[in-house]
């Protein structure tokens, strides 16, 4: 029967990641999101080299100006250049947003998977989640600031210390929904037969989680990621508003938006820029996430 079953033309197997990348590249939304995202990141990090106005330099005679060549985005109530402030603020907001989102995603998925997967851990971990959900945010943040600000400042310097503090504050207070969502999905997934099959071939729990469970709960995680980045950026601004965030001479998008809100009627552009920047970042991350999710899901891939 050999002549009948000549094997189909073989191609050398490529790695799965290459494959995912291929797929990702063909995803229009993903590429758009990625481009936009890279553009935003490049602008906020590299922009200051090209546009070298000091974002904290005041110029009282030039306050409250509209867009002009000297100040393409206009100036604020102290005559600080808004473009420079947007870029400086972006650098902080984007890094806080992404790091905090990653942290909260990590914590959330970690707790969620553990709770969903190990029945013994489910109770304690979910009660822990309940606890964190119930804790009042403001006192929690205040306590964190109280306990850790000085040691962190001493260990990492002022800016880095505060960055770490803020990122962990946001991360630690926002992982709970992710954890619960992931857990819910894992609970259902755990009963699927392929998990049983994987166990029968001696897959350790760690591998079972990383290779079988996690890829299958990716989509809620991706959604949490996109929403998380917006939450993180906005929470950061709320923190600054409460005086718990970066020092006051540190612009961030959230803070710019907040400061601009009072001038909404006179100088609408002052809120439009930061608002737009936050939305675009979130949107780009969302499309990135969508693309990644599609690329990672073999059922959708190829369509």
């Amino acid at each position, binding site marked *: 029967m050999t002549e009948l079953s000549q094997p189909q033309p073989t191609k050398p197997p490529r790695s799965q990641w290459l494959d995912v990348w291929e797929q990702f590249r063909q995803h229009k939304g993903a590429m758009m999101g990625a481009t936009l995202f890279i553009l935003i990141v490049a602008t906020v990090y590299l922009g200051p080299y090209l546009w070298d106005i000091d974002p*904290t*330099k*005041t110029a*009282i005679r030039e*306050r*409250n100006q509209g867009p002009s060549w000297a100040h393409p985005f206009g100036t604020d*109530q*102290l005559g*600080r250049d808004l473009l420079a402030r947007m870029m400086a603020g972006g650098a902080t907001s984007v890094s806080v947003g992404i790091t905090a989102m990653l942290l909260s995603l990590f914590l959330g998925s970690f707790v969620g998977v553990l709770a969903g997967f190990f029945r013994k851990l489910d109770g304690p971990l979910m009660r822990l989640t309940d606890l964190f959900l119930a804790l009042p945010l403001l006192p929690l943040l*205040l306590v964190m600031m*109280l306990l850790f600000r*000085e040691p962190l400042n*001493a260990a990492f310097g*002022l800016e880095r210390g505060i960055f770490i503090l803020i990122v962990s504050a946001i991360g630690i207070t926002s992982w709970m929904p992710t954890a619960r969502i992931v857990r819910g999905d894992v609970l259902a997934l755990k009963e699927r037969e392929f998990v049983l099959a994987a166990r029968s071939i001696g897959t350790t729990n760690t591998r079972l989680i990383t290779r079988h469970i996690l890829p299958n709960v990716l989509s809620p995680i991706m959604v949490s990621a996109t929403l998380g980045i917006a939450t993180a950026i906005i929470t950061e601004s709320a923190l600054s*508003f*409460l*005086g*718990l965030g970066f*020092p*006051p*001479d540190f612009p961030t998008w959230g803070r710019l938006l907040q*400061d601009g809100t*009072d*001038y909404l*009627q*006179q100088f609408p552009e002052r809120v439009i820029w930061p608002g737009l920047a936050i939305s675009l970042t979130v949107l780009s991350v969302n499309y990135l996430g969508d693309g990644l999710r599609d690329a990672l899901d073999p059922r959708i891939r190829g369509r």
Partner: protein
Amino acid sequence: ERGKDGNVSIIYWQAPSILNPFLSGGTKDVESSSLIIEPLARYDENGGMVPFLATEIPTVANGGVSEDLTTITWKIAPGIKWSDGSAFTAHDVKFTADYCMHPEGGCAQLTKFEGVTSVEVIDDLTVKVTFDKPTPFPYGPFVGGESPIIQKAQFENCMGAKAPECTEQNFGPIGTGPFVVTEFKPNDVITMKANENYRDPNKPAFATLTFKGGGDATAAGRAVMETGEFDYAWNLQLAPEVIQQMQAGGKGTPIAGFGPLVERIMLNQTNPSPDLPEGERSTAKHPHPFLKDPAVYKAMSMAIDRPLLVEIGYGQAGQVTCNWVPAPAAVNSDTFKCDTQDIEGAKKLLDDAGIVDTDGDGIREKDGVPLKVVYQTSTNAVRQDFQALIKEWWAEIGIESELRNINASVFFGGDPGSPDTFQKFYADVEMYANTFNGTDPQSYLANLLCDKAPKPESQWQGENISRWCSEEYDALHAELTKTADAAERAAIARKLNDMAIEGGAMIPLVHRGRLSAHSNTLGGVVLNVWDSELWNAADWYRKTGS
């Protein structure tokens, strides 16, 4: 004619939580309750005293105050009725004093009764207050919005530890004022109606009153001046442009008045360095390495462009000041000039004092210590703008500052466990505003007495925030407490003010006014910064034809 003008609505962006001012020192509570309960006398918009429930203001001249300055006798106007119809008598006045002075009551207005040894009812309409020592200014008790009279019959069972249990009383005190409470929703809204037993049968002009609380100053201003939903908005601490924009809405007018409120930078006389062991930071043990140097603090003050600060931060609600006590007018010293920025002069001052930049990093050093300051304040848009500007100016003269802003409820809360309170002052300089009640600055001036410095032993309590200390000052203040003559008192007060400023306890920045707004249809509003803003609500009326 009473009640003809329908409803008047007031918005305070801080919501009143209780209508008993003795249980809460909050301005919102004091002012909202001032519509209901009244003192014997009030301050008017100029800081003068006007009798309300009394027939006249007792003085030494008219015999109301004893020659030795230890007693004061009030005569109550006859025919005054509580809103429940019963008569207002001297017993109520005495009861009020007993209520507040009860050791377990935690009365917020206790200072008003400082030095009072007894309050006696002479007859139904006469009451005599005795002090433990000659008191040149005996108008603490029963004068001003913070010290109104409550009804004995109503509060009899609410003394001391029982005070908080009397919710009904605290939420609806019976008073002699123009309005009575119909419903009180704590931290939200109060509805009131005209007091039928109010002493002037033609007042108030409004039949009902709505007192809404909560939100923020912007929204309150908008509701009065732009949408016209409310008639009166309190304390609009907003950027001048924003006020202007709102005024353009055409529905209301901002009004400003000036009390003794001063926005200032306090200079820490002690070393706040985090390297010091806990318990020694910011204490008299370690003097500040450079802030005590006159050249330094004078230069810092000279580098500040105060008119600009006023312009961007307060507009019509601010004035340049170089004084700690800028009001009343009599005590406002004119020793200092500070309305022009002088960067060059500041630099020269420092250079001359030998405080120069030795290592080329742009920051001057004094005795090897670089002039780097931590500059903290509470979170507030205007203050952050000030911080940004001042930081820049100081940078120009070679002083670097690290900015920090702290949540107001932590900053002003006296929690000894927190490193961020203004009392603890774990920073080199800090900015906030302070003021005093009434027109007499004596106790305010006492804030800088050496023994009032916050320290660990006193749980960091104390008003001498800068830990400034001068024997000379203490002595002069002691003299003030013994002087009765008004002009002399004012002179001493000015001298004390000058000593403090010259000595570098603080850098005054802006004399802040109170900016409120009323709708264009509301008549009779007289902004009063010495007493409750709503002091003359009985006279308010609806303008017709607008």
